[in-house]
């Protein structure tokens, strides 16, 4: 069970990494428009709107 001494801190570190990644993605505007990109990918036209 000593592996827990590694795994539990590791999970905490991971949680912080995920939190940091999320913070970055919010900051870079990825959550500003949750609908637009879904429509944009269906649009046949490759040229910018």
């Amino acid at each position, binding site marked *: *069970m000593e592996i*827990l*001494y590694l795994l*539990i*801190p590791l*999970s*905490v570190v991971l*949680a912080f990494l*995920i*939190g940091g990644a*999320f*913070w970055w993605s*919010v*900051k870079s505007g990825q*959550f*500003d428009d949750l609908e637009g990109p879904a429509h944009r990918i269906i649009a046949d036209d490759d040229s910018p709107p």
Partner: protein
Amino acid sequence: MLDSSSTVLASNSAALLSRRAARAEQPCFHCGNANPPGTQWTAVFDGADRQFCCGGCLAIAQTIRAAGLTAFYARRTAPAARPGSAEDWLGYDAAGETAGWIVRVDADLRETSLLLEGIQCAACAWLNEEYLKRQAGVVAVSVNLATRRALVRWDSRATRLSAVLRAIAAIGYRAYPYDPKRREALAKRERRALLTRTAVALLAMMQVMMFALPGYLSADGVEPQFQALLGWASLVLTLPVVLYSAAPFFRRALRDLRLMRMGMDVPVALGVGGAFVASAWATITANGVVYYDSVTMFVALLLCGRYVELRARQKAGEALEHVAPELPATAERLTAYPRELTTDVVAAVALQTGDVVRVASGAVVPADGEVVDGRSSVEERILTGESWPRTTAPGDPVLAGSINRDSPLIVRVRKAGPATALAQIARLAERAANERPRLAKLADRAAAWFVATLLLIALATAIGWWLTDPTQTLAVTFAVLVVSCPCALSLATPTALAAAVGALGRSGVLVVRGHALEALARARHVVFDKTGTLTTGDIRLINVVALGSHDRDACIAIASALEQGSTHPIARALSGHWASPTVDAVTAVLGSGVEGLIDGRRYRFGRPQWVQELHGRAPPDVNDVAPAATAVALADESGWLGWFAFGDALRPGVRALVDDLSSQGLALTLLSGDRATTAASVARSAGIAQVQGDARPEDKRAFIAGLQQGGVSVAMVGDGVNDAAALAQADVSLSLGSASDLARWTSDVVLLGDDIGRIAGALAIARRTRHIILQNIAWALAYNAVAIPLAVSGALTPLAAAVGMSASSLLVVANALRLGRDAAWAPDRRSDVVTAQLGSGGATS
């Protein structure tokens, strides 16, 4: 802090900007941020050398000192917010006067509307009002919580706009003269911050639950060394939740306590803070019970609710951010009129009384003034609701916002910018909106009582358990605070509103103000405007009566031939008609009609009196053709040929809407600025019994106020700036997406597109929403009535309490979301009942 205006600065020694190099690493004196190395922004303050991170901070500090408010720096508990840049603040003084944000009330009084950032609750509005009122020179302040706007009036001899803005910044808020673009950026910042807080809490919640699970699952407890490890891991994960995610709750709770009032955030902060400190203590001393799971779950669920609510509120407002100014941004000023006709382009707001401007044909008049040269017709629909252009000649007044139709005009400016009639109507509406009584106060007061009672119960529980079983005191008290968290109660209304707003938004009905749905559900009387609301606002050919040798079609053919090449609305109404003969020698007589030769015969088409001059015969008895419409006659030299009726056509779906609303038991009224006969005719074809014509904007407002005095809740459907005051006066106001921008701004609900039938659907949803809110509140109260006694008796563990609270909240949210799922009304149902236009037959009008 509140009476800092009374403080007089002791040391007033002049010591301004000097280009000394920085000596020690001080934080910025104003905003507390780190200074760039070797900052050149330094000044002597309170007898000591102070360093600033930027010119903006320095400038603000100096202005504060100049206003005698240096005590702010001694009394503040946290550094001020860092200003965006120096210009952002000081520039407002000069720019405000020219751009029209600052309104001259009289020689010394100034007034402006500010958008306040950081307003969370009624306490914030209260704090801002009180603090600003105590500023020297500020005469009156009114903060609208729903729109987050402040109307500030001040004495220009005693203070300035920048000082007002700084005063607001000093108490931790920010204010901007209203500007849609800024508002958008603000909304984005708010949304991102809340989203990050929520995500951090959710992430921590999942992981902490994981760590807590062994404790719940193992029958004989987790071994102590692992228990400690899990405890520390949970502590590390819960820390950001408490310090970052829950920070706003603590901030608001602190403010509530400082103001000696009870808000929803007080028990939340107490519960979260108390449970976290106790758990941390238990982990550090390796002795006691931990509640990290309950804490994180509690915060995460609370934030989820707030985020959903914020998102729905912002979405509804987003479509309105693209409001274009009604006035043209620039004007062509004739610098040396009448000697030369050279023009220079200036900002419309920079125009001054006496300036002479050229208004091109098709352009918007930039200021109120008087025509000095040129003949044309101007359309003042935005101001008067009247769709017919008014002919103008030298000496006639023209108003800002009206459209010059035919040919260029030279106009001498009488009133510009905020002094124009248009701007005044706009402000009237804004003031009405700002001074609307706050229904929300009642709900806040009820919540405050609930919270106060709850805290007393928690305190009594704590004392009771302390006396009987001290080891259980914390767990039970926390359970009481958590289980009774007024979440369900506080979610009951906003989630239902958010869901309804979302459902309506998807079908093209935008709810702009929070109270709109509630007011819609209560509305008993619906008042309609005519032009552009019940009617399309376009002029159409309604009827033609042939009087002479020519038949109907021939009359139309001649008329449309005569009107060829004209931009008059009548010409446009005829343009879709038959192919026409060729015309020679066409002359248009402004305000009267057109004259021309077809196959050698002279025809006139226009105002009957003018047409009559051609042949001199008595007008025919054709009054029954279309009494409400505008009559235009066609004749040749031998006599009358045809009698045309032009008018506004009823919007499709109006009949169905009127029938629908009447069957729901609503009283309907038509108010119009048009002639009484026109209004009556439209009312008749729409099926509205009560009608009032010739109503000026003030009359409309008074009519609604009269209804309200009789205790009736009034919904107003309108369009046009002249309706703005009436829209603001009504309990709830609706406007069509094609309505002028200002009306849209003033109204609580905007129908996108032209389908007026959606109003019936909006009313139905509003009523369902009220129903669901009542269900939710009933549930929340019933839940608390059962859960609180259980918690007080110690039968609930904190986790069970957290689960119970969450389940209750989720139930409330799920119930509210029903509103979004089964949209119980089909807007399309109505569109196939394209009805009874005034049509080609004279009978309907």
